[in-house]
């Protein structure tokens, strides 16, 4: 920590930037495998309980899902523009990062509102809570909701991680001057886009089986 000259095996900041971006891509490939594992659980459930899944899905409000998808797409645009600015060492990139942050918080707010609704309506079949679903194939519906909470919960955890990193970037913003100081913006943008992609799959799989 004390001697910063030793911290890098690379001769230039640009080379180091390529390496960190490459590392981030590998990490995202790894993350994709993890979400794939959870989506497999969902898929087996849906194939076994087609009726329950369709009926349970119609209990979700697709408008809120669509709104959240739109918010995430906007946030991806914002962070993509932030990256373009940071690439020119334009410090105004910070404004766009703040916008990304706000959109992320808005997404989580809506998500939290939805969860609260589902808890109140008795659609959260875990932790000993009563399951107040009265349609056909209650077992299948309960399975859907458990998948729903696991998938959206893990996605939200990833959002929180991303928000924390953006917060850290903004907190250290005034120390960042040269182009190499802004590589972190690009790596973070890659992560943020990935979390966006995960939601792009979750939206139709969870909200649009049989929208009401």
């Amino acid at each position, binding site marked *: 920590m004390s001697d910063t000259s030793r911290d890098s095996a690379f001769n230039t900041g640009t080379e180091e930037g390529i390496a960190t*971006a490459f590392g981030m891509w590998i990490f995202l490939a790894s993350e994709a495998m993890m979400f*794939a594992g959870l989506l497999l659980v969902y898929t087996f459930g849906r194939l076994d309980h087609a009726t329950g899944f369709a009926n349970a899905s119609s209990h979700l409000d697709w408008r809120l899902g669509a709104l959240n998808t739109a918010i995430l797409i906007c946030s991806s645009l914002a962070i993509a523009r932030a990256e373009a600015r940071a690439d020119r060492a334009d410090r105004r990139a910070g404004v766009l990062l703040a916008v990304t942050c706000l959109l992320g918080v808005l997404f989580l707010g809506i998500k939290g509102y939805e969860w609260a609704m589902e808890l109140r309506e008795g659609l959260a079949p875990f932790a000993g809570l009563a399951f107040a679903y009265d349609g056909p194939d209650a077992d299948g519906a309960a399975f859907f909701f458990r998948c729903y909470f696991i998938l959206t919960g893990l996605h939200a955890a990833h959002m929180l991680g991303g928000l924390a990193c953006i917060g850290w970037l903004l907190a250290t913003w005034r120390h960042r001057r040269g182009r190499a100081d802004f590589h972190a913006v690009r790596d973070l943008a890659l992560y943020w*886009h990935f979390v966006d992609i995960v939601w792009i799959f979750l939206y139709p799989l969870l909200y649009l089986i049989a929208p009401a």
Partner: protein
Amino acid sequence: MTRHLITFGALAALLALTTWVAFLDLGAGNPVLALGIAAAKAALVAFGFMGLGRSAMQIRLTGAAALVWLAIFVGLTLWAGLSG
């Protein structure tokens, strides 16, 4: 700038499309279409926002390898779990 805006526009259009087709009764076509559109949107994000097409060869290989492994994992598990 243009590339980002085009990507954004296409994503918004596909969001509307996927929501609209979900209300049509296409039988098995519904999940296929939903996943197809989601894959197209994912590709748009990867190429339009994440710059996958202009990245170093290693990064494009990483993306390709991820797809191959996802296919192995999901395909083989589904097949082994459902056949027989």
